[in-house]
């Protein structure tokens, strides 16, 4: 956008003159205000509302902030130069973790509109149900002749428009499933509603005794309630999948050979071709697969392979997309970009692994598969048998068939699953987990094996020095001073730890960073170096370490361990106590993996696993009949996440990993995972109980309907009782 010319405009305010410059700086589309939506999972109280809104509104450039406590998200109206990371920082200082959501305004308003539409239909059905009930009570208690006919007529006047308006979602879906040649749950529902309405109109005009207007509207109301709950869960799932915004921008700096010096231009990764050269600055992510042409540095490949130790990179080193360049600028010659890159091949593997999981059939699907044909056969049978018994009285036979359809109609069945899933996902949401997939809860309940990734999942991916107490004060002060001069993650960790320990940095001369190797300096005339083992002349250990050499004395290692994610120990312990097999599969070196496995008490672990190895391990476990829960965050976990029976990734994970997983864990704490699993088990038990309850009602009510004793009063009683039982049973989850 910055390369388009802004036409000079006449503006009323002097500040607007500066606007083009501000636009240039922001490098974004020329829009005045921006709406930024962030998820704040930690917000829970009235004080949170005040604290968050007041703090954000005090921030320069922010016009207004509003926290929605139900959805736990804050929407901020701000000038274009305020960006999401700055807001997240500010919220973090307040003590709330925040993640940017892609406002995707279009899709969000669309979801809102659909939700309101359903709610409106539900409201109309509720209004009609109450009024018709009022009239029906008079009929049930014995109104006769003209009064009864009048009441039936008024009921018809209310019920028919209601059915036409509120029943639309069922009719549409039934029509769609009939066209696809299937018998969904909505076919018997629509048939029952339409048949009941039609037969009641006919009976009304014949001054018959029974009209089923109340049943038809009540059916619509209860089923719409189930549909609305279902919609809300799905909407939350969809937004979780779509709204977590991309972490990185797919851009690269291309070097174009010009006359004299090469000049840089920023291009989209998709436009790069093999043979071109890109510049990767320190701190940047390598956008392509390629070979280093010039420059030395170190690469952090933890997100790709799970290695915590940064790897050396110099000319002719082969690099893959996704690694982070740490210390020096690199020029990379592209060997594969876009569709051919290793990232894209990974995406293909994920797609293959996912297709296997999509074949999962839910409890509700299995129930409705048996239910729909049975109901139709039952009603048809009742019609034929009564036609034969009564000697051709079609009116009586249709009445009984309609009563059978209404009474067997899945009021409770339609509520059984949505009510439980809504209660359960609300509970999980409060525990900081977003369920992206509707069937994830059922799959989570079946899990008997848990596979953890190491770096970034069980650990935070931030190293901490472990053996500082073995160094004397002087060595520490030298190390602190040298570490302060580098932006390498190990150096930063060392600088932070020494600062916290109160070490006063020594005064050094000639501090210089040698990209890819370490830092060197002069201290009291001695040469001091802090860096990789072979550079300072030490034997490398098999744990993450930086080596400190002072003068000619032998180099000593400063070892680092990754910090455990809070709740990791709890999660592992709870899973083990539940009798589940817990595995640790990592791409890191055996030493580091073994240390962590011992620390957490995991006796089954594998190290140096490639992405394919992880997926293979999971697939072979599943081939043995195990149901695997995969918890991971890295690019190397995506295939495994997609292959597993159900998968969870933390919100800090890469997009690819979050997209591939079923549940996203907001917040840093890992402990909710174990709780989520027990919530899933309970909710599946509730779903089964609900099915049993509605089946039980049918066992009692269907013979009554088949024998021709069913009256509208009976239908109303059976329907409301079973629906209320089922809804209450679902609420027990809380």
């Amino acid at each position, binding site marked *: 956008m910055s390369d388009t010319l802004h036409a000079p405009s006449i503006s009323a305010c002097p500040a607007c003159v500066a606007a083009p410059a501000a636009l240039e700086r922001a490098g974004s589309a020329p829009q005045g205000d921006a709406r930024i939506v962030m998820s704040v999972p930690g917000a829970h*109280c*009235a004080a949170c*509302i*005040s604290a968050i*809104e007041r703090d954000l*509104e005090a921030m320069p450039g922010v016009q*207004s*902030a*509003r*926290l*929605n*406590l*139900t*959805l736990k998200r804050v929407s901020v109206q701000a000038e274009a130069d305020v960006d999401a990371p700055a807001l997240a920082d500010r919220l973090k200082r307040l003590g709330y973790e925040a993640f940017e959501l892609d406002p995707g305004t279009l899709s969000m308003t669309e979801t809102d509109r659909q939700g*309101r539409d359903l*709610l*409106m239909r539900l*409201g*109309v059905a509720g*209004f009609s149900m*109450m*009024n018709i009930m*009022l*009239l029906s009570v008079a009929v049930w208690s014995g109104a006769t002749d003209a*009064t009864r006919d*009048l009441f039936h007529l*008024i009921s018809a006047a*209310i019920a028919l428009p209601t059915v036409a308006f509120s029943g639309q979602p069922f009719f549409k879906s039934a029509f769609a499933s009939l066209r696809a040649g299937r018998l969904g749950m909505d076919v018997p529902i629509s048939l029952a509603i339409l048949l009941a309405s039609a037969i009641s109109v006919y009976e009304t005009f014949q001054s018959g005794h029974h009209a089923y207007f109340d049943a038809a509207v009540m059916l619509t109301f209860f089923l719409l309630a189930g549909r609305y709950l279902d919609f809300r869960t799905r909407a939350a799932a969809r937004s979780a999948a779509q709204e977590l915004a991309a972490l990185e921008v797919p851009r690269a700096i291309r070097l174009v050979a010009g006359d004299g010096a090469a000049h840089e231009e920023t291009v989209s990764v998709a436009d790069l071709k093999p043979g071109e050269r890109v510049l990767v600055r320190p701190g940047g992510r390598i956008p392509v697969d390629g070979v280093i042409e010039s420059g030395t540095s170190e690469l952090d490949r933890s997100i790709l392979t799970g290695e915590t130790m940064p790897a050396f990179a110099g000319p002719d080193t082969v690099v893959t997309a996704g690694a982070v360049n740490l210390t020096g600028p690199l020029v990379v010659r592209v060997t594969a970009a876009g569709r051919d890159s290793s990232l894209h091949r990974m995406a293909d593997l994920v797609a293959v692994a996912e297709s296997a999981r999509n074949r999962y059939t839910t409890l509700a699907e299995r129930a409705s598969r048996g239910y729909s044909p049975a109901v139709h056969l039952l009603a048809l049978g009742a019609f034929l048998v009564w036609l034969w018994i009564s000697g051709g009285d079609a009116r009586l036979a249709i009445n009984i068939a309609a009563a059978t359809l209404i009474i067997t109609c899945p009021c409770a069945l339609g509520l059984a699953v949505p009510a439980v899933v809504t209660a359960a996902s609300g509970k999980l949401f409060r525990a900081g987990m977003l369920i992206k997939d509707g069937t994830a809860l059922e799959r989570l309940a079946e899990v008997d094996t848990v596979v953890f990734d190491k770096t970034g999942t069980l650990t935070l991916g931030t190293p901490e020095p472990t053996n500082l107490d073995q160094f004397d004060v002087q060595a520490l002060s030298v190390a602190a001073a040298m570490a302060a001069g580098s932006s390498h993650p190990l150096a930063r960790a060392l600088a932070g730890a020494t600062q916290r320990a109160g070490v006063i940095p020594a005064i050094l001369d000639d501090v210089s960073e040698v990209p890819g190797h370490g830092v060197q300096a002069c201290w009291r005339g001695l040469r001091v170096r802090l860096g990789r083992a072979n550079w300072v002349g030490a034997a490398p250990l098999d744990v993450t370490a930086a080596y400190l050499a002072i003068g000619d004395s032998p180099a000593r290692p400063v070892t680092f361990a990754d910090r455990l994610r809070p709740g990791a120990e709890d999660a592992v312990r709870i899973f083990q106590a539940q009798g589940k097999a817990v595995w640790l599969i990592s791409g890191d070196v055996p030493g580091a993996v073994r240390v962590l496995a011992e620390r957490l008490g995991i006796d089954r672990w594998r190290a140096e696993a490639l992405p394919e190895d992880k997926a293979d391990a999971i697939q072979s476990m599943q081939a043995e009949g195990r149901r695997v829960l995969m918890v991971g965050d890295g690019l190397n976990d995506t295939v495994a996440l997609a292959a597993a029976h159900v998968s969870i990734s933390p919100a800090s994970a890469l997009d690819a990993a979050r997209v591939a997983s079923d549940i996203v864990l907001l917040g840093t704490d890992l402990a909710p995972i174990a709780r989520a699993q027990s919530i899933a088990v309970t909710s599946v038990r509730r779903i089964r109980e609900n099915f049993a309850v509605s089946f039980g009602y049918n066992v009692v009510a269907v013979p009554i309907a088949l024998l021709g004793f069913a009256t509208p009063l009976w239908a109303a009683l059976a329907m409301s009782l079973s629906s209320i039982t089922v809804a209450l049973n679902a609420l027990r989850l809380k």
Partner: protein
Amino acid sequence: MDVLAILIPISLVLGLLGLAGFYWTLKKGMYDDPEGDSRRILRGDYDDNPKQ
């Protein structure tokens, strides 16, 4: 039974009034943040930027 001619329309009108009220709350977005609204009303400080 003549009273029915008055009572039934009255009950229907009352019901429709309720329905209209429901429609109004729905349009006003009063179901967007039930939890937050229930807390906001008990806060001491004034809501400077009420939701539009």
